[in-house]
């Protein structure tokens, strides 16, 4: 369901951060706040700077689709569970 929230990994362009934000974290929070409202609150889980550039968040699929069209968003990938070997 497009309203069912799940975790996503969002890859973001390093250089796209508007200067008015003091940090990438603030920028990502602002991006999430600007998404269309959902019955389920969006949640910023992590901000990544070294392994990847971006963040993870709990979103609905429709919000994730919307996010793909934001400036500076490179890719939006569902969070997956892995298993120990």
């Amino acid at each position, binding site marked *: 369901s497009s309203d069912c929230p799940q*975790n996503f990994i969002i*890859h973001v*362009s390093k250089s796209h951060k508007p200067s008015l934000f003091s940090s990438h974290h603030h920028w990502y929070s602002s991006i999430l706040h600007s998404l269309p409202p959902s019955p389920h609150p969006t949640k910023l889980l*992590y901000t990544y*700077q*070294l392994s990847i550039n971006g963040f993870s968040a709990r979103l609905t699929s429709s919000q994730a689709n919307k996010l793909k069209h934001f400036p500076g968003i*490179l890719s939006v990938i569902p969070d997956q569970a*892995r*298993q120990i*070997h």
Partner: protein
Amino acid sequence: TTRTPHFLGLSDGVGLWQNSHYGDGIIIGVLDTGIWPERPSFLDSGLPPVPNTWKGTCETGPDFPASACNRKIIGARAFYKGYESYLEGPIDEMKESKSPRDTEGHGTHTASTAAGSMVSNASLFEFAYGEARGMATNARIAAYKICWKMGCFDSDILAAMDQAIADGVDVISLSVGATGYAPQYDHDSIAIGAFGAANHGIVVSCSAGNSGPGPSTAVNIAPWILTVGASTIDREFPADVVLGDGRIFGGVSLYSGEPLGDSKLPLVYGGDCGDRYCHMGSLNSSKVEGKIVVCDRGGNARVEKGGAVKLAGGLGMILENTADNGEELISDAHLIPATMVGEAAGNKILEYIKTTQFPTATISFRGTVIGPSPPAPKVAAFSSRGPNHLTPEILKPDVIAPGVNILAGWTGAAAPTDLDIDPRRVDFNIISGTSMSCPHVSGLAALLKKAYPNWSPAAIKSALMTTAYNLDNSGHTINDLATGEEASPFIYGAGHVDPNRALNPGLVYDIDSSDYIAFLCSIGYDSKRIEVFVREPNSSDVCATKLATPGDLNYPSFSVVFNSNDHVVKYRRKVKNVGTSAGAVYEAKVNAPPGVKISVSPSKLEFSAVNQTLSYEVSFASDSLGLSSVESQGFGSIEWSDGVHLVRSPIAVRW
């Protein structure tokens, strides 16, 4: 671990251990289920102060005091925001700890395998007794807990990778992966995160997976990852089935209680007593009481079957493999006298039960046996294999290493069998998986990093690959436990790691991030798909240096695909002279697969300086014999030698 250092040829005072100071100053980030810090493998006696490159911390909690960290465990953190978001609520702290403490066991095992301190008199119920130590005894451990009861989430894994890079680790050991086929690189968070780590000079060593023996089952197969399969060592725990007619079938077991004795007991098949898989509560007591029960593998936990037999009044259990597992034997710390036999023996035992009026048997437990028979290493049937499901031109897995019946540290919170019905707690446990082979290689990578601080992750990987061997200790090609036949580079990659030879590889195949980007271009990724790796929107010229073929990536192995259009495939390589002789001269020796003509040009490389790089080209030409096959494969190698070094690259060919 006990025995594996010896099996790997590691020895005090010589070779890689000596030349790397046992990895002192190197930090291995172990991303896993956390760590049980009180285990003797994590004592820090004799270790110098924490390396000044370390920027991390030790997160404390009610069950993880600051004293849990020391000069061995220099960092410990837990990442669970992704997991709690998945759960839609907080972790149930009655069931799992939010601290870095390992309540599962897996992370304690892998961490101690990679870099555990030396522990005398280690064993599991006297099995595998000996001196236990990690591969890099003096390396430091940073434990990042990313796995929880419901799995290990990408969001948490990436957070741990991010932190590990910031903290200053040198090696990341990740015995975790996707279920099913490997995702595309740009949808595989482990691959993307590993790319970022490799860009920071970190070696990322990952397990290939336990989804063997089917083809193309390997995961964590991005070319910047060191992908490790699992193999046996020269140690077994035999527990033979002795039938009433005198026949003896070999099995294995870690059962440590009272033995059954020489007198034979009545023998029945679980399938005739209510349940062939012997689920708990499903066996008919009137048919099982006082008997040994044969149970089929599958359906429930292996040790649980013995519990079911015990509950129904049975006295012993024979766990038989079905065709799914063939002849692969896994030693378990059974709760009742029990052993595991292969499919062939299992079928004969069942036939005996069917055709005999009063079938009887006993089990003879023989403890720990070390020796040249059966030959070792053999590739575990469970070890995931190639061909590479994403990019057939890159051979995967890269290497194999010990991953069967490995003794290493264990949690104090769970039984060695991981079953609630098992009340036992142990310092060490014996388990199997590519999870166990991965930290062996992570530890070796740490040793090489110490020996050669300026080597790139790709150079370290190259050294491990080009010095690996593919003959067992009887001089024959390494066998595949899934088939009983010779294994191939699609199964063992470059072969079994040989750490002392890796110390002095002579030549290395180096790769940097621009090469990997060119590789991604060559497999058809457009600028949009490459953005997640370069972290910026790309202009169209990101692929200006695109490789002619993905097989042109400067990889230390060769994988060639012939099709009706490509009868001739050409790959280019560059090798760097990392030996001590400026004027080294290497000559190529080719072992071509049947049906393939191979030419190497030039066939002689004359170096004039240390660290000089020279190029060569390999042409693979398929003859009509090979092309006539609908689908077939062949194997060979290219060896460069200067009379001192032997730099071997496996070749795998598919039509």
